[in-house]
């Protein structure tokens, strides 16, 4: 978020209250940019209007990729490149390959998932975010409303709506 944007911030101090407030503010035709909280609140993202994340799909695809890579590596080395008779077993000894293929699947899923998560949320080392309120990571729940995206509602009405919905403070940033 660039610092040139104008935000009106409603500060709440209770998780259930902010969840309530989201629908209350939205019902007045005000578009909410986002809500910032110190811990996850179930249902808050849907209330704000974010779409359901597709991370599980990404995780599944990374898992498939990991399994494919592991099985390809094992069969290339054990069957095609340098087949060796080990204990009279088949070269293509699939049951013996389960452990390593499983570990490969888990490894790719975990790293793929976390990297996707970081990219989709713009998280990287050295990122200096524009923090709206330092108390967000402590004990306050902050509803951010972008003034430029709410042309139809006046700033005073937004402030009033936030106050009415239970905000303990209304700040402008």
């Amino acid at each position, binding site marked *: 978020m660039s610092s040139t944007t104008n935000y009106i911030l409603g500060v709440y*101090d*209770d998780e*259930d*209250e902010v969840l*309530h407030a989201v629908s209350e503010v939205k019902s007045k035709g005000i578009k909410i940019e*986002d*809500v*910032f*909280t*110190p*811990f*996850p*609140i*179930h249902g*808050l*993202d849907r209330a*704000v209007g*974010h779409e359901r*994340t597709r*991370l*599980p799909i990404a*995780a599944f695809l990374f898992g498939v990729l990991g399994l494919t890579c592991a099985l390809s590596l*094992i069969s290339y*080395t*054990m069957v095609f*490149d*340098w087949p*060796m008779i*080990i*204990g009279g*077993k088949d070269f293509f*000894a699939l049951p013996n*390959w389960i*452990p*390593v293929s499983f*570990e490969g699947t*888990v*490894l790719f*899923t*975990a*790293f793929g*998932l*976390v990297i996707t*998560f970081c990219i989709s*949320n*713009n*998280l*990287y*080392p*050295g*990122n*200096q*975010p524009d*923090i*709206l309120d*330092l108390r*967000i*990571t*402590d*004990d306050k729940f902050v509803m951010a409303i972008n003034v430029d995206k709410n042309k139809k509602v006046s700033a005073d009405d937004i402030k009033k709506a936030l106050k009415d919905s239970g905000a303990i403070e209304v700040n402008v940033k």
Partner: protein
Amino acid sequence: MSHVVSPIREKLVTGGKSYSDVTHDICKQVEGEPTKEWKWAFGISTLVFIYGAYCLFYTWWQGIGVWGLNKTVGWAWDITNFVWWVGIGHAGTLISAVLLLFRQKWRTSINRSAEAMTIFAVLCAASFILAHMGRPWLAHWALPLPNAFGSLWVNFNSPLVWDVFAISTYLSVSLLFWYMGLVPDLATIRDRATTKGRKFWYGLFSLGWTGSSKTWARYEYMSLILAGISTPLVLSVHTIVSMDFATSVIPGWHTTIFPPYFVAGAIFSGFAMVQTLLLITRVVFKLEDYITIEHIEMMNIVITVTGSVVGIAYLTEFFIAWYSGVEYESYAFINRATGPYWWAYWMMMTCNVISPQLFWSKAIRTNLMVSFFLSIVVNVGMWFERFVIIVTSLHRDYLPSSWAMFSPTMYDIGDYIFSFGLFFTLFFLFAKYLPVVNMAEVKSVMKGVSSNFPEKKKATKKTEE
């Protein structure tokens, strides 16, 4: 409502804490000067680490001939220590992943330190794997890398190669899970930072966390998936460790019961180690309101359950040795209990099978001193379990002329001491520089379960409506 909690549940966080109290209590030791106790503890563990590092260096330099191994007993303390540390590590993943899937909210105040313990324990285990190779600088030969021999690849049919993949995946995935859990809390410290150094370092590692609802929603999914894949991962790791033995042809090792028996043993010893560390941490950092008697009791219950599973496994092994009618197998087990290593066997039986049964009494399992003592007893017992499995199965070879005993040298002992030095040095560093309790998760389970949590808000809300 975000949480529906039965009124008969014990409070997870006591002392009427508010959200900012949690932040304050947990960040306090990160932000303050190190205490005198911490300095002493850290100093001693560093000295132990240095002494151990010398012994390990000497082992690497001279080769494993400095250990007490002989041609009959080719695996002894090295693999005993390896299996012991890996087993201890399992509790962290169990607590953070399995208890997350089962929605056990009491995990929130202990999962951070348990996961840290996992990572440090796996590092200790890895030090023995490297050392027991004899030529640790060739450790990469265990990986399927193209090489100048052909390329001659590793044997993917071998449990030892499975182990390489299992342990390295386990270490990296645990590290990832732990670090992602830390990010929101690092952001808390970043936002409270008063010094430049703290602002920079915690800012760097908190990756620009803002706490937006969208990020949190994705974060929850990510944690759930990581927990979902870590659960079979942790089970696979000790299963594969047990297969190092179970796929061999040594009487006393090649039993099909090994995978579940090893996994239960791993949870058992890991929970005991978490218990030991938590009982110290809660007193040193004054976290009695977060790590309550309830937590200690829960841990003790898990210890009793897994201890009983382990006890049944010991008896089953004995029964099957007799029932199979295989004389080598029968001999291996009778020799364990009555042979020259009888003391190790009975040490294991007493510590692992009998002592956890004391926790059936509520007075005992809620007593801190007894819990602390028994948690150490359990880990002594679990060390002897691995020693008994490894050494007593090997020391009576097929030919009586090859029969031998094992006696450790100062380097066997020194390398074991190294792992303690490494473990505690890392743990004390973690306890000082990172939040030992997952603040975000604890805050998320406080409402409705924390005593005296301001209820007035909800009441006024209702009257307004």
